[in-house]
């Protein structure tokens, strides 16, 4: 069934006006109902705070997906992600977060993963990459793990044999499963 995205709300956070425009136009073209923008993480946080206090004033009552650049001033994408996942004022700590980056080194990807990113999207990107990421968020959400040093989507996407020792050494009594919604 072809998606009906009229009730979807996406927040695009990107400091480059040109990249921001192409993302917005693509999302509008696939008929996403509400697309809001911010030019850096600080603006995005302010928008979400306003949304929590007064949805009408901010023009949004919810955010379904955040698509954010990484490198921005004064608050970058990683700090924004941290705020969404951990801050008490976050409107939804489970919010899907797609991180855009021109940085392809493994350390950076691991850093974002360990902060709880949902999807990484490497620049340069194509229209298909963007729509594939949105589809992945819709079709394949992961369970969230809340551990002493991590909160975010399960970092193990696939059930495949581990190459090294299993570091998840916990008993069933130490795990609590919650069902939401």
């Amino acid at each position, binding site marked *: *069934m*072809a*998606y*009906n*995205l*009229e*009730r*979807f709300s996406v927040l695009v956070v990107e400091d*480059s006006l*040109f*990249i921001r*425009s*192409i993302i917005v*136009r*693509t999302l509008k*073209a*696939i*008929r996403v109902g509400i697309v809001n923008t911010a030019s850096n993480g600080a603006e995005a946080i302010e928008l979400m705070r306003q949304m929590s206090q007064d949805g009408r004033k901010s023009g949004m009552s919810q955010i*379904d*997906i955040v698509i954010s650049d990484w*490198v921005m001033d004064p608050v970058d994408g990683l700090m924004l992600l941290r705020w969404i996942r951990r801050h008490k004022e976050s409107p939804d700590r*489970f919010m*899907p977060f797609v991180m*855009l*980056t*021109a*940085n392809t080194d493994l350390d950076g990807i691991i850093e974002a993963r360990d902060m709880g990113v949902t999807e990484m999207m490497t*620049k*340069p*990107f*194509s*229209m298909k990459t963007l*729509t594939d990421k949105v*589809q992945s*968020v*819709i*079709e394949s*959400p992961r*369970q*969230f*793990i*809340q*551990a*002493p040093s991590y909160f975010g989507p399960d970092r193990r996407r696939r059930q495949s044999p581990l190459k090294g020792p299993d570091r998840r050494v*916990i*008993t069933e*009594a*130490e*795990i*609590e*499963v*919650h*069902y*939401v*919604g």
Partner: protein
Amino acid sequence: MSAEAAVEKKARVHIWRVRNRLKDRALLGAAGGPPGFDQVALATAQEQFDEMAEEYVDWVGGTFAELSQAIDEAAELPSIKRQNHWERIHRIAHELKGQGGTFGYPLISVIAKTLHESTRAKTPMGDNNVKILKAHADAMQAVIHDRIDGDGGRIGHDLLEGLKQAIAKHSVV
């Protein structure tokens, strides 16, 4: 630890299984056909993307002007005072690296990548290094001026080779 104590022990790990409301909503009132985006909508999205790629050539002129200004200003300063300009150029390079390939000019991304690396923290900021940055800016302007899209074939290869030679020349101490 007794069995009771083990049960009473507070969970160390919580697993949250959240209902997929996004998909529920996406399929509410959805049209027939296979799950996914509407094909007509996808075609429109591609058209929008392609249109913007055409506009990119005009847009990037502003970014190049900003880059050239930062390099020219850096050249006027003593090397120990170039840090702010280096950071500015590094930021512009990062932006260009992400943009070029997105809009059909992957050579911009390739060249911007080495420009980005050349302006990392603690990279030397001597006069020769400024010349290396200038060579990058010139090469990127040539890509746009001559509309060298894709890998640029022979012209693209020659352009990158020319840049490599310029870097080698100015890297000689």
